[in-house]
């Protein structure tokens, strides 16, 4: 309605609006009627009618030029609404030839909107553009430059390039500016066409007009992105420009909302971030100006925050500097605490950048991060997930992946679903705390995003289930398998499952469905038949299902039992034998043939649990050596590798790394890859492939891979060439599930246990006391909900346990810690390394108030020194070093230094020592610190309890957790 009123007003004023633009009443009517259209269909009808009218009118001879301009504008309008107006393109092109500025501009506007840069009509405009670039009227020149930007492609750049370069010296700064930008555009289209002009851009950096200087930053940014090292000499110039801008040396007209030329500042900061990245010397030049900007930056305006954010990005990119880091952290926390969602978003992003340098800083913002995670704003949520993804460790992976999966289930956006599913998979593969958990997580991912995940993931999962975990513990393996079978039988009840997941299910049921004897053969077979009926499934799933049935039957027959075919199974087999797919047919016939064989034959065809036996593939075809030798002796031509035959390199490995990745799990024989008609008729086997392997020219692919992955994986050329080689690539998998590399844990554990043995008399007292203090601290913080705290603790505190956990439990439970093979989670919670989490927990609960760090806090440690005495020199040492930072004990624990032996041992010693102080404190009663005292004592008590529990894991454990986390 509002809109109609304005239209009415407009009409009442007559052609007032048109006075400037010169639009006709007809156009106004068109706009009006479309505005009034009630449905899409009506709108389309009006537009189609309009297009018909225009088509007729525009073709009339001698249309007045004024009228023609109106037609063209109406065509542009029609095309904006999504209708084809190609019949008018030629008229728009004609209009660019016009002498009148207004018409020429309209013509240029229309062609830039209508035509793509490879349209046939472009050739008719080139001449006009060339002429206009030389015009005396700078507005015509500008219009031509705008058009050139849009319409000139790689082939036509040379036609206009000289004129544009001449314009770099144009007296009007607006023209110079646009000329620089047009050249930049040419560079984007075709880098080689303007590569000889780079010096011009450098020169323009010193242009008198700051606007032109600013424009030259855009191409320079692109050049520097391509090749950092050639531009290091410009660092000082950039810095001095930035300094001048920040100090308001530019004319006032460049101010924007009281900020001096913010866009120039932003671009300069981006450039400096690139130049200073990983370069200590260059970064040294940048520090001063950065801290200047940090100081001066106006945080009340949007643009001020934009510059501030860019500073943070720059700080996180260049060689770290402590003072700047502090400023950056401060700015980030301001962002996070802001009410504006935009600033929170920037804050989360900055945090993600800063934790790369110092992972600790996430700690103090944990609640802000949790808030963002629960925010209704999708963008913010996704950004936060990105942050969590970056800070995932083996200790918090469960919480994070659970969150991710919950979110994944809640969204409909397939694109993002795919992304988050692949992130879940990546995290689970990298950090899985237990295999049980891994399988459960994978099940969830498959169930909800099954068709969106890479098929590789499914193969990985099957492989994991079949191979176990690289340990010799058959019991644990078979337990895992039967739990997988249980869960799959349960999941099969769900109404709709993605095909990839069904494949996994079928395979696992076929392989292990009857292995533990829990389920009857007929039950499993029945389920497998149901799979194909209940779910709409494709041939692949059917093939998996029938193969599974075949395996189960084979195992039964091999075990000497009789297999009775269920009627539904028989009908399934019959159906498949008549299938259109030859593959399914063959499988069905194979099954029938198998059923008639005797047990011994069946046993050797499909041996029990042989899925992960290695199949020896003789890639060299060495068994043919004799044959080849004979043939050569008989005068046959020796085989030349393909690359030699065709005289070019890199042919045989043109496949993308992705394909290789995907194919690595199925058997592939390279020889079948390229069926090429070879010019010389050679017997292919004649290649005694020893040669080929050396000759396969890898560098091409290596280069490609490095391009893709180079930044992430420091793969040397040897490493990647080994990957790319002819072998089946299984290494990616192997890495993740290979043998555990840590084995030092058990010894540490036992020693810790030994010390605690025999004590524990006074532990109970301390424990009850400690519980009180925990409650106290909780009551002090009523404003933060317990649940959030718990989440925060599980996300962030985890970083503390991380250092310890890795060496102790890691992925697989050490054999030494006996009773915990079954309850992996319990076992993990009691593993000695984790005691630190618990000591940390009470501290976490009162993170809201900053605990004043005071001298008395150190007291217990000083006492401790005295107590332990000089006899234990080593312990003493470690204590004094950590004693200095005693108040920051937690902080040091949170530090994300790679878990080194010395570190974990030293903290172990500290806690041990702390414990012994406790022993002493019972007799001596040192005056505890006012604030921290009870906490520390509490922590000690916990520690002791934990140790006790560690020795004899009892039902206490869950309670302990509840105490700590509320």
């Amino acid at each position, binding site marked *: 309605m509002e809109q109609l009123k304005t*239209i009415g007003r407009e009409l009442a004023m007559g052609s007032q609006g048109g006075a400037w633009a010169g639009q006709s009443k007809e156009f106004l009517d068109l706009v009006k009627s479309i505005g009034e259209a009630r449905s899409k269909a009506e709108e389309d009808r009006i537009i189609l009618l309009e297009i018909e009218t225009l088509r007729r009118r525009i073709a009339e001879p001698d249309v007045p030029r004024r009228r023609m301009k109106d037609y063209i504008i109406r065509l542009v309008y029609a095309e904006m609404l*999504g209708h084809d107006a190609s019949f008018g393109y030629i008229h728009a092109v004609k209009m660019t030839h016009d*002498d*009148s500025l207004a018409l020429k501009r309209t013509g240029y506007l229309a062609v830039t909107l209508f035509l793509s840069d490879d349209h046939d009509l472009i050739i008719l405009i080139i001449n006009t553009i060339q002429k206009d670039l030389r015009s005396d009227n700078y507005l015509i020149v500008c219009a031509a430059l705008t058009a050139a930007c849009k319409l000139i492609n790689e082939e036509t750049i040379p036609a206009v390039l000289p004129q544009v370069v001449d314009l770099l010296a144009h007296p009007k700064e607006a023209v110079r500016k646009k000329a620089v930008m047009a050249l930049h555009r040419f560079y984007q289209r075709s880098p080689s066409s303007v590569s000889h002009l780079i010096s011009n851009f450098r020169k323009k950096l010193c242009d008198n007009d700051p606007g032109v200087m600013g424009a030259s930053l855009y191409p320079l940014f692109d050049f520097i992105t391509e090749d950092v090292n050639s531009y290091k000499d410009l660092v000082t110039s950039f810095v001095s420009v930035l300094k001048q801008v920040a100090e308001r040396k530019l004319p006032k*007209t460049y101010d*924007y909302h009281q900020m001096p030329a913010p866009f120039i500042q932003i671009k300069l900061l981006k450039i400096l971030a690139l130049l200073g990245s990983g370069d200590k010397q260059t970064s040294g030049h940048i520090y001063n100006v950065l801290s200047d900007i940090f100081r001066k930056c106006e945080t009340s305006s949007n643009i001020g925050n934009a510059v501030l954010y860019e500073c943070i990005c720059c700080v996180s990119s260049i060689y770290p500097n402590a003072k700047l880091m502090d400023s950056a952290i401060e700015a980030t926390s301001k962002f996070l605490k802001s009410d504006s969602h*935009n600033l929170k*978003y920037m804050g989360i992003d900055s945090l993600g950048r800063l934790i790369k340098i110092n992972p600790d800083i996430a700690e103090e913002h944990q609640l802000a991060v949790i808030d963002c995670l629960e925010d*209704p704003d999708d963008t913010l949520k996704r950004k936060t997930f990105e942050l969590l993804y970056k800070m995932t460790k083996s200790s918090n992976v469960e919480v994070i992946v659970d969150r991710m999966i919950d979110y994944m289930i809640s969204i409909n956006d397939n694109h993002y679903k795919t992304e988050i599913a692949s992130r879940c998979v990546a995290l689970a593969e990298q950090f899985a705390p237990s295999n049980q958990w891994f399988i459960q997580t994978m099940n969830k991912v498959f169930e909800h995003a099954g068709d969106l995940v890479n098929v590789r993931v499914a193969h990985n999962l099957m492989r994991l289930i079949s191979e176990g975990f690289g340990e010799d513990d058959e019991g644990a393996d078979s337990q895992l398998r039967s739990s997988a079978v249980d869960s799959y039988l349960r999941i099969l009840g769900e109404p709709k499952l993605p095909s990839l997941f069904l494949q996994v299910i079928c395979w696992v049921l076929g392989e292990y469905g009857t292995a533990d004897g829990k389920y009857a053969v007929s039950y499993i077979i029945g389920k497998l038949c149901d799979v194909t009926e209940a779910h709409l499934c494709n041939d692949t799933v059917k093939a998996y299902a029938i193969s599974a049935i075949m395996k189960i039957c084979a195992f039964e027959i091999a075990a000497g039992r009789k297999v009775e075919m269920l009627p539904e199974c028989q009908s399934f087999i019959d159906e498949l034998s008549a299938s259109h797919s030859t593959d399914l047919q063959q499988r069905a016939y194979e099954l029938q043939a198998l059923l008639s064989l005797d047990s011994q034959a069946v046993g050797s065809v499909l041996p029990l649990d042989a899925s992960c036996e290695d199949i020896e593939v003789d890639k060299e075809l060495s068994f043919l050596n004799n044959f080849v030798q004979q043939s050569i002796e008989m005068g046959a031509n020796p085989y030349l590798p393909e690359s030699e035959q065709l005289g070019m390199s890199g042919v045989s490995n043109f496949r993308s790394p992705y394909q290789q990745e995907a194919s690595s799990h199925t058997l592939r024989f390279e020889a079948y890859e390229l069926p090429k008609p070879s010019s010389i008729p050679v017997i292919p086997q004649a290649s005694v492939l020893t040669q080929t392997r050396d000759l396969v020219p890898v560098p091409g692919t290596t280069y490609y891979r490095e391009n893709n992955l180079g930044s992430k994986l420091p793969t040397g050329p040897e490493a990647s060439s080994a990957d790319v080689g002819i072998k089946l690539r299984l290494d990616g998998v192997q890495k993740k599930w290979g043998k555990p590399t840590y084995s030092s844990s058990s010894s540490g554990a036992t020693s810790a246990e030994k010390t605690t043995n025999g004590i524990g008399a006074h532990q109970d007292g301390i424990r009850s006391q400690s519980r009180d203090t925990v409650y106290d601290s909780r009551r002090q913080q009523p404003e933060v909900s317990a649940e959030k705290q718990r989440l925060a603790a599980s996300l962030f505190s985890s970083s503390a346990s991380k250092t310890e956990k890795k060496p102790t439990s890691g992925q697989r439970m050490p054999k030494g810690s006996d009773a915990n093979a079954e309850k992996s989670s319990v076992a993990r919670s009691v593993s000695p390394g984790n005691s630190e989490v618990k000591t940390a927990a009470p501290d976490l609960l009162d993170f809201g108030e900053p605990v004043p760090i005071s001298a008395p806090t150190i007291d217990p440690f000083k006492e401790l020194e005295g107590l332990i005495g000089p006899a234990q020199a080593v312990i003493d040492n470690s204590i004094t070093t950590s004693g200095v930072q005693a108040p920051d004990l937690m902080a040091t624990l949170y530090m994300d230094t790679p878990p080194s032996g010395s570190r974990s041992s030293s903290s172990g010693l500290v806690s041990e020592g702390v414990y012994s102080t406790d022993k002493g404190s019972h007799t001596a009663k040192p005056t505890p610190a006012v604030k921290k005292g009870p906490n520390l004592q509490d922590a000690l008590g916990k520690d002791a309890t934990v140790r006790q529990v560690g020795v004899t894991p009892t039902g206490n454990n869950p309670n302990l957790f509840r105490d700590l986390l509320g």
Partner: protein
Amino acid sequence: MIRAVIVMNTQGKPRLLKFYDFQPPEKQKELIRSVFAVLSGRPDNVSNFVEADAIFGPGTRLVYKHLATLYFIFVFDNSENELAMLDLIQVFVETMDRCFKNVCELDIVFNFNKMHAIVDEIIFGGQVLETSSEQVMKAVEEISRLEKSSNSISFVPKAVSGRFGR
């Protein structure tokens, strides 16, 4: 660089489209539809940023501003700064406001060649050209003045240029 400038109303009708990489009309229609679907699903009082890699390809983001009956949308890649882009929208809107005095949706539809002139003075070939709405206004007014004067002059050689044109 900036990939696109889109103005559409709250019913998803495009009011101004400028793509700095050519998009055929059908594709434009589709993009508009998907952008509108995303934006209309967003509640008020949330951030003005949306990750748009599902719509415009990897690494792209969009910043939008919802004013009265219109969405102003800038699509750009990761060489730009979100907050700065938000301010660029501000520049754009301020300039229009100066231009039309209390700008409304109709002004934008009806004067869209002027709108294009404004956008061209702010963004050139996907890069930020000018951020002062005063300067933009000056440039646009200069154009309109010269356009008018060139019209009045061109009455005489009309026939000549007309022949030349063909």
